């Protein structure tokens, strides 16, 4: 056993547990800081990385496309490892299987050597992170940095009490010292502003974060045109793809199908802001029309028979051809080819953009600019600088040797070169699951070393989607009610939406459901967002 324990320790521990919650967890949060202070925060200057010319140049909304990795990657840190110093502990999450421990992980060891320090990661599965986070906060003994997700309540007070304001290191031109962090889009930094300061580093994600995928091979097989011009044509396309006798259906997840139809209708992305007044997508007058449209698709048998009863199977249904159209994250594009192309000759997918419901252009909802943020425990200035240098290295962009190491590991162990392109080996696939993308990251880029021919299609989709992007105006704002009760309430709303689409409830019942949402907390969430918006915009 570790420490020597006296009876007094035991007594103090057991009796002080409850009190410790209040005292240790939040400490003295200090006086409330006016929201208006957030308006005064100078965000880091945006200095795009110019060290490499992409094959398919992007914009702020469109990701750069790269057909091949540079044969001579740029040396990210000519002066040697940038973050020399004591080990750095970081608590973060993962979607992937857990990586092998550092002692048996060549990739992790090489990453540490390149940084000049030892990264000690406390990794929790993504679903367990919300359970673990408050416990660690209550324990008081924080790691050097922690991923702070959007679901964490009392965020401003917690950040003020326990975490470092990084403004003096990052604000405005101060970011020049960390050029790879300066390469992160400004929109992603907005999500890190609290208490009149910059309280973390973003984990940037693509503006065009989602794609309505379709199986291009099945379209070709049936000589169908995926470029539908309105909902009627979309429905016709689905009908022609549907083949229930062979257990082949057009669509899977009813909810994402609804989102796609709402994009056709121009329904707001979460919220619409008009002169400081917020309207939720749940109250939009076009939502019942969208529900009715998906209900018709379901009644026509165009959705997989299990679509309303299962979760987490849609990806496999799409990959195996059981459904032909599927809404997913942008990064799933490469993943589909990796997982399914091997066993399906001619496997091909592409992205479909929502047309206007009755013709004309539709819209495309942006994803979150940042997945979460990485906050630093309060520490002396030099320690904070070391942490920032390490994170700057973890944000080294495509084309650098540091990026290649971070994503593809060590040559000969984690990847083999095909020309200049690193192809992950099975060992690499396991070792590189160290979740650096949930610490911070460079801006995403379109690159698929196993199949570069896919990249132009990805880039073309991004360009088309960027023209009709609709942002979520609540991003970067904070509503305590939304954080605490918004999640479970939204789950209830999703169930109601599904009940209507499945035909278990009438479309007209939505008005009542929406009113109860407003009563329960919708109106409170709205007013909190409006108050926040006003404080920083007026």
């Amino acid at each position: 056993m570790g420490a020597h324990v006296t009876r007094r320790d035991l007594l103090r521990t057991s009796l002080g547990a409850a009190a410790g919650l209040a005292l240790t967890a939040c400490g003295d949060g200090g006086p409330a800081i006016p929201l208006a202070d957030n308006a005064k925060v100078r965000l880091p200057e945006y200095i795009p990385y110019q060290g490499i010319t992409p094959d398919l140049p992007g914009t702020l909304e469109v990701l750069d496309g790269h057909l091949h990795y540079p044969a001579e990657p740029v040396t990210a840190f000519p002066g040697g490892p940038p973050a020399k110093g004591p080990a750095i502990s970081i608590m973060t999450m993962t979607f992937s299987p857990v990586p092998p421990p550092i002692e048996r992980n060549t990739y992790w060891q090489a990453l540490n050597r390149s940084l000049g320090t030892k990264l000690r990661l406390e990794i929790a599965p993504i679903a367990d992170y919300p359970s673990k986070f408050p416990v660690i906060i209550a324990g008081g003994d924080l790691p050097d940095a922690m991923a702070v997700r959007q679901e964490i309540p009392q965020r401003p007070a917690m950040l003020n009490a326990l975490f470092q304001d990084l403004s003096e290191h990052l604000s405005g031109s101060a970011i020049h010292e960390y050029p790879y962090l300066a390469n992160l889009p400004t929109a992603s930094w907005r999500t890190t502003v609290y208490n009149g300061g910059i309280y973390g580093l973003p984990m940037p994600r693509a503006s065009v974060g989602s794609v309505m995928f379709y199986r291009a091979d099945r379209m070709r097989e049936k000589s169908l045109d995926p470029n539908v011009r309105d909902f009627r044509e979309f429905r016709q396309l689905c009908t022609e793809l549907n083949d229930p006798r062979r257990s082949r259906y057009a669509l899977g997840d009813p909810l994402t199908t609804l989102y796609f139809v709402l994009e056709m209708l121009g329904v707001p992305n979460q919220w619409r802001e008009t002169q400081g007044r917020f309207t939720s997508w749940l109250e939009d007058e076009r939502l019942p029309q969208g529900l009715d449209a998906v209900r018709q698709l379901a009644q026509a048998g165009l959705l997989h028979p299990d679509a309303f009863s299962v979760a987490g199977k849609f990806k496999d249904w799409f990959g195996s051809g059981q459904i032909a159209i599927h809404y997913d994250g942008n990064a799933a594009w490469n993943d589909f080819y990796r997982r399914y192309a091997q066993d399906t000759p001619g496997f091909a997918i592409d992205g479909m953009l929502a047309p206007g419901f009755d013709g004309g252009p539709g819209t495309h909802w942006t994803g979150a600019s940042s997945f979460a943020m990485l906050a630093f425990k309060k520490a002396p200035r030099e320690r904070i600088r070391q942490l920032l240098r390490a994170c700057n290295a973890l944000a080294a962009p495509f084309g650098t040797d540091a990026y290649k190491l971070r994503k593809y590991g060590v040559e000969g162990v984690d990847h083999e070169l095909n020309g200049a392109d690193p192809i992950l080996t099975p060992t690499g696939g396991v070792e590189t699951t160290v979740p650096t993308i949930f610490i911070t990251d460079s801006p995403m880029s379109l690159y698929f070393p196993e199949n570069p021919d896919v990249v132009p299609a990805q880039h073309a989709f991004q360009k088309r989607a960027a023209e009709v992007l609709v942002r979520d105006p609540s991003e970067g704002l904070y509503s305590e009610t939304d954080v605490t009760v918004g999640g479970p309430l939204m789950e209830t709303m999703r169930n109601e939406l599904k009940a209507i689409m499945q035909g278990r409830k009438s479309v007209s019942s939505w008005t009542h459901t929406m009113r109860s949402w407003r009563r329960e907390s919708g109106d409170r969430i709205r007013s909190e967002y409006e108050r926040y918006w006003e404080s920083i915009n007026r």
Partner: protein
Amino acid sequence: MSTATHIDIPGQTPSSAPWRAAKSVILLICCLLVAVPFFSIIATSLADTRQVTEAGGFVLWPDRPTLDAYQAILAGGLVSQALTVSVGVTAVGTALALLSSVTLAYGLSRPGTFGHRPTLMILLFSLLFTPGVIPSYLLIKQLGLINSYWSLILPTMVNAFNVIVLRSFFLSIPRDLIDAARIDGASAGQILRSVVVPLSRAAIAVVGLFYAVSYWNAFFNAMLYMNESAKWPMQLVLRTYVVNNSAIGPGEAAVAGATLPPSQALQAAILVLSIVPILIVYPFLQRHLRKGVMIGAVKG
């Protein structure tokens, strides 16, 4: 299989052949309901990517058996290490839990033991009011047990329900036997070792299995207390694979990843690995279990 012979049980009317056949069919269906998912898990773990995806994740017979899923999860050694951790925690935890529970239950079964009543009250109190997650975490932290295997063993070492089960059994042992041993000069420890424990093997086996299964299945404490994945037990590793099955939404997907077997095959392979040790132990305890489950069954 030996030929079944019909035995007349007094007071019971012999059932007709069709009814016996119907009962056999019902029992067969029940057996299949248990066996098919079990077999399917093994089959899925051995099936290749194509078959798993075509079958929607539920394979009954692997057409082209492959060990890819096992190779993938054993690469890097995390699963094998997690198995070692689980076996170690379960073995040490169960042994210590049995030692503490048997001695505590024996003490509580002897009226007149020092502090008998307050101890029993404290035990019953812990049955009704369990500590919350955060107080438990603070206690473990103050004890310096974060990232220590003891944090997986100590918090669940004494289970009030199991102690009460053992105490009930010890109370049913004839007092005369214990008095006789005392007259022969045996100490309390000797009585426990030489009289009580040998007579209570069935109860101890059942409680031992309860402890072993709870140690084997526990993942939450490891998630809270173990910072290094190298020290994770099997169930937490299994959970990360299960969680990994969640659909990837907009903007939250990972970037790189090699071609792994389908997630259902990986989950099935870990499930198989995680149940094998308990399956190995079970036949050795079965003899005691049959007696053990009858504890208290005919008590008024």
